[in-house]
């Protein structure tokens, strides 16, 4: 078993104002993994990342980065981490090129090499034509990409991104995904938080779901989706139906005269249900998932009803 890229144990944080953001979190991220850290607003994701990046002092617990203890070997650990924070945190009066070269310099990358790397990353992230303008004139999506470029200047082995695609349009988001995939394929371990569950499903192999400062799920994305025992479908009927027959254990709700919502459990036969509808002269025009599958699970794990069942996981 290889040393995990990141290992946190019993991590807790209570801020000075008394808010407990983390209440004992333990998790491990294998080297080379693409890992999603999910959770609703205020769950403690940024706090966890802040502790790993030494921006937040933990109240309890420990962090190991590639086997090294963060508290006792801070510099060696930080050398391996690239951070893309949730909030913009570069000097808006400096140009992207300056920002990148300075960031590299803070990690000891000599000026000439820093300039080469900055140019390469700016080109890769379609920012080269903005290299020499004040960074405050960049669009929101460009600023996010600038922070990704900055996090890579010292070529870290562990890249941590806190909502890198928040507020970014679909096209740019897709190209950021491609970029992150390439970075991961080249051997960098990637951890990201996101509120777009499609993003986690597309990119990540493993996932931890955090809620109220606790891990409620820590597994592979595939297994998590496999756990989904009920899927909800929206069915559009060919025309308005007066009454709906019983569908053999499938729970049916009528949204309007020509639309149904079906809760289908694992193992239940959707084809048989459609056949029954047909026998009663009700045609089905189309059908779709009510929500992204991961989204459904997520809501179930972290929603208000989850507080007891979810915690036990």
């Amino acid at each position: 078993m290889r040393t995990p890229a990141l290992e946190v144990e019993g991590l807790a944080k209570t801020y000075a104002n008394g808010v407990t953001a983390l209440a004992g979190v333990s998790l491990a991220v294998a080297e080379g993994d693409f890992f999603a850290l999910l959770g609703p607003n205020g769950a403690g994701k940024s706090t966890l990342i802040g502790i790993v990046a030494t921006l937040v002092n933990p109240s309890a617990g420990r962090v190991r980065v590639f086997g090294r203890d963060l508290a006792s070997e801070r510099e060696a650990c930080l050398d391996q981490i690239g951070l893309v924070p949730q909030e913009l945190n570069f000097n808006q009066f400096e140009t992207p090129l300056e920002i990148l070269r300075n960031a590299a310099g803070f990690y000891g990358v000599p000026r000439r090499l820093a300039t080469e790397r900055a140019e390469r990353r700016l080109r890769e992230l379609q920012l080269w034509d903005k290299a020499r303008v004040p960074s405050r004139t960049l669009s929101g999506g460009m600023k996010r990409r600038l922070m990704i470029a900055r996090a890579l200047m010292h070529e870290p082995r562990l890249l941590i991104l806190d909502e890198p695609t928040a507020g970014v349009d679909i096209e740019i988001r897709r190209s950021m995904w491609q970029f992150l995939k390439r970075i991961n394929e080249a051997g960098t371990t990637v951890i990201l938080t996101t509120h777009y569950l499609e993003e986690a499903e597309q990119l990540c192999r493993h996932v931890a779901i955090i809620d109220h400062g606790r891990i409620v799920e820590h597994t592979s994305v595939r297994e998590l989706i496999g756990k989904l025992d009920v899927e909800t479908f929206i069915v559009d009927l060919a025309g308005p139906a007066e009454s709906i027959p019983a569908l053999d254990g499938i729970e049916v709700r009528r949204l309007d005269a020509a639309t149904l919502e079906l809760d289908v459990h694992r193992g239940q036969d959707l084809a048989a249900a459609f056949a029954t509808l047909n026998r009663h002269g009700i045609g089905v025009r189309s059908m779709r998932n009510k929500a992204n599958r991961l989204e459904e699970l997520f809501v179930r794990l972290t929603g208000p009803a989850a507080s007891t069942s979810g915690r036990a996981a």
Partner: protein
Amino acid sequence: MSAALESNPGVPASARARHFVALGTILRREIRRILRIWGQTLVPPAITMTLYFVIFGKLIGAKIGTVQGVGYIDWIVPGLIMMSVIQNAYGNISSSFFGAKFGRYVEEMLVAPMPPWVVLTGYVLGGVARGLMVGVIVLAIAMVFTRVSLHHAWVTLSTFVLATTIFSLAGFVNAVYAKKFDDIAIVPTFILTPLTYLGGVFYSVAVLPPFWQRVSEFNPILHMVNAFRYGLLGVSDVPIGTAYAVMLGLVVVLGAVSIVLLRRGVGLRS
């Protein structure tokens, strides 16, 4: 497990060498900042100093005659240079470091593998650099009004370095505790300016009653101004040894305080 450095060709393998690259990066950034906003950093001291020379040196000084055997306008040159140099060193680091906190880009440095001394030294050298630029400008202005002499070059130089370091460190401590921009104006207004005016820039403390002379000795600026005046003119109100002791003591104390604040992350980490 040293794959990090193996996978990073071109980056110095020794931590010390990397720290020096980081230090140079901070200093370069500080200098660029000073030059980028030159209208706020370099022009104001030039204007105030010109006014001081015209009003105190030419108009009033002509009526005063000599102090310690030196014409008044020549006598106030060292104090005026020292005054603008320390104010600017202080202002540079307090507004630059507070700006980094306010704009959150101080985080770039906090997440990087830099020990506190690198960050502190980088910023202090930035303050010294600002002092140097302002010092040269003010000196040039002084040379328009009078002939500037230099008696002890090393005393002049070392006093300059010590004084700018002291006030850079003090500005740093101020920035660490500041929560809003107003907080970095409080110390200059209520402490720095009064101490400067009472620090023997415009008068020799020998003119004060003995009690106030004794009180003045607790003013660190008096020691800096007099050491600097000794360097340029060869006259001083205080023993030079005492002046150096005061300055070195302040560097050590303020330096230690700054390092502790940075290590603990006071005002920087939550």
